[in-house]
């Protein structure tokens, strides 16, 4: 590993972690809404997709 890549690794570690966790957090949030949330309207809208993706639906 070069000195420059070491330095840039150190400088970008926190930036990388923040971006990665932001993406994963937001992704989990959407996934929960589409696949698991139980309010009737969300359930009905996502119904066929939930069954097709094999999320527990009922």
């Amino acid at each position, binding site marked *: 590993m070069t000195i420059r890549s070491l330095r840039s690794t150190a400088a970008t570690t926190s930036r*990388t972690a923040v971006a*990665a966790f932001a*993406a994963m957090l937001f*992704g989990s949030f959407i*996934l929960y809404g*589409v696949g698991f949330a139980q309010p009737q309207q969300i359930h009905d809208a996502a119904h066929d997709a939930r*069954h097709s993706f094999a999320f527990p639906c009922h």
Partner: protein
Amino acid sequence: MDLIRRLFSAALVAGVLSGTAVSVVQQVTTVPLILEAEKYEVTVPVAPPPAAAAPTSPPAPAATGHEHHGHAAPERSLGEGVPTTAEEALNRVMTTVAANLLTGVAYGLLIAGVMLLIGERVDARRGLLWGAAGFFAFALAPAYGLPPELPGMAGAQLEARQLWWIATAVCSAGGLLALAFARPPALLAAGVVAIVLPHLVGAPHPEAPAGAVPPELAAHFVSASLGGAALFWAILGSATGFMLNRIVGGDDFDDDFE
């Protein structure tokens, strides 16, 4: 912020591509089976004696724990779930497509975030491997304990199944990541344990399976669901890998030294 934007646009592109593809496949594979199964999802006998038409009549055993519309319509007639007007049918297709696109973007964000954390180079080919791992963790492993269900099939309590599903997906994904990227033997062993453990614990199942859906439909649905998921994950993984090719793995920093 730039990195976040690139991650999100990668997930958006990959999610829309995979969600669109799986939507097309679903409409000719799983959705017709769901509509067919809903014909068996009735709460009272099809031709009830006059007294049974009262709204207070108890639901048939096959329908317990399986209410689509709460208690508002206890005397559903055969096939009521099937859309009757073109507008209803279109609406149902559109919401399903929207849910598929959102699912694609959501999984895209998860896989892009993990790709970035791991920090190994990715491209379309390696992304395909990531997609295969996603298929294993989020489709095959959960389905091994909780087979994809049609409406009208008997299942254990919903919350218990959701919990097992999520735990299995997380354990399987973590286990696969350990097997793929960890070096210490202890971590590799932990990866195997994480993958196997949910199945040793066992998925929650109903005490007595008493679904009303014909087994032929249910069996067909399982393979259709897993096949669609395989296509979805193949596209999602390779598209995410392609989109993150220049971003993950340090290309931007190391290029001028190679």
